[in-house]
């Protein structure tokens, strides 16, 4: 009997069909960020990937000779090719964000960005890891079923449907959306768990001085918050909340009772990193990754509320 319940719960957890609404928000944000990432690569393309790049293709190939990474950009440094590559990547990322040809576009932009990641070893950081993680799981979802040009075009083809209120029409449910969401959620739990365990090894997260060290890290700082040095109790509280939240995120994000609090702290921590430590792109994508814990029904309620508000204000 217990076994039957377990398998039923297991099936519901992984395969109970759900709509793609929340995943659509994630797709829009991730696609936009991918476009921006490729625009920034393009700003110094010769320095990043050209024949005389900071790290030449030969050097990167040599660095990776003992692992299993590979990129066609290890063999190509022709500027016309690189420009074409980046322009195509930017277009694909925009198509992903607006949701046009979504099923084909996401795997393509994922692969092109993966090739760039393997080429650009040494220039990457958390932003690239999170964006690639989300794109990987979006490939198996049907995120183009919501908030997309694909969906609008489908309605236009069907004259009987009202295209002006497409978000109110029930969205198709799919187990692939559930699988994708669960993989994002579990991956996020692993990220936070190891981030928390890593911080536990350091003394400064226990005595609170980690917050001071972050505040005076000039290379990261974007807004001066050294005033926090006058409030050691606040620094200790911030460090301990971060440590506790990050380590136990994987447990506390699942129960309905604690989930909202955990997500609110996530938004606070990542907004703080984004605003004060100059990593607005990374902070935003971490918040977006946390969207995975917002149920599609909740997203629908939010959209309905926004629509009601905008109609009443007209």
């Amino acid at each position, binding site marked *: 009997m217990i076994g039957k319940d377990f398998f039923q719960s297991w099936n519901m957890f992984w395969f109970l069909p759900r709509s793609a609404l929340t995943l659509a928000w994630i797709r829009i944000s991730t696609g936009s960020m991918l476009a921006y990432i490729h625009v*920034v690569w393009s*700003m110094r393309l010769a320095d*990043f990937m050209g024949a005389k790049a900071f790290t030449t293709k030969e050097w990167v190939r040599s660095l990776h000779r003992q692992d299993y*990474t590979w990129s066609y950009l290890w063999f190509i440094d022709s500027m016309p090719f690189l420009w074409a590559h980046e322009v195509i990547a930017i277009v694909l990322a925009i198509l992903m964000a607006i949701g046009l040809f979504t099923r084909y576009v996401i795997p393509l932009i994922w692969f092109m960005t993966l090739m760039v990641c393997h080429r650009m070893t040494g220039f990457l950081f*958390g932003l690239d890891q999170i964006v690639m993680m989300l794109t990987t799981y979006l490939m198996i979802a049907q995120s183009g079923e919501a908030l997309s040009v694909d969906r609008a075009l489908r309605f236009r083809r069907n004259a009987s449907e009202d295209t002006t209120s497409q978000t109110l029409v029930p969205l198709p449910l799919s187990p692939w959306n559930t699988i994708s969401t669960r993989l994002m959620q579990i991956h996020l739990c692993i990220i936070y768990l190891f*981030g928390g365990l*890593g911080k536990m090894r350091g003394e400064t997260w226990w005595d609170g001085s980690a917050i001071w*060290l972050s505040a005076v890290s*000039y290379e990261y700082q974007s807004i001066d918050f050294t005033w926090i040095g006058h409030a050691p109790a606040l620094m200790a509280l911030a460090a301990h909340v971060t440590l506790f939240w990050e380590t136990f995120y994987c447990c506390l994000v699942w129960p309905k009772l604690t989930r909202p609090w955990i997500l609110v702290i996530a938004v606070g921590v990542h907004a703080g990193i984004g605003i004060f430590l100059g990593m607005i*792109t990374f902070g935003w994508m971490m918040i977006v990754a946390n969207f995975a814990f917002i149920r599609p029904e909740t997203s629908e309620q939010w959209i309905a509320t926004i629509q009601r508000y905008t109609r009443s204000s007209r």
Partner: protein
Amino acid sequence: MLRSSIGRYVDFMYLSHGYFFFAPNPGPGHLIECQLHPENTAANQNVFLRSIVKKYFYPDRVEQWPRLLYHRHFMLSEFHHTLFAPTELEDSTTIDARIMSQWREDRRTYESLQESIRDNLATKHPGYRIVLKRIQHDLPSPRLYFVDRWKLTDPRLYGELIEGPAQAPDATQPSKPIDSPEPRAVPIETEVTR
């Protein structure tokens, strides 16, 4: 065993990274100082040291905009520091052969990275000899910052890291902020204007 069985998959999928944001401790920043010397500078060390025509740093908030572009260069300077292997090992006669072999490989990788960066900079500054230095930007203590009024860009917080024999830092040790007004062991000569 787990790594050997799924290593190829996680490597290729770009999932083989540890997640240690600001862990175990937030630490000092690491910069690359690029010095330009005339190509035909005399071999004499003192003359060479005085022959700097220009020097600048990576990353640079003003030169690299938007912020993501700056951060890419910052990651390069941190990566350059992470890959550092000293010119020689202390007491190499007693060191295990495998460690020596690993050190040689690490040193080759580091030197070839420096060469690659120098080649890039040479395209921007033809006719100059380019020298790269690793600079550590230490973090001041609250006392230095609030009481002694040191700015975060105070030259005394910047120090050149030596290329010679050095013990590997222990990542588990806390990154203590600088709490002494004494100058750094190898202070850099001019103020960093960034």
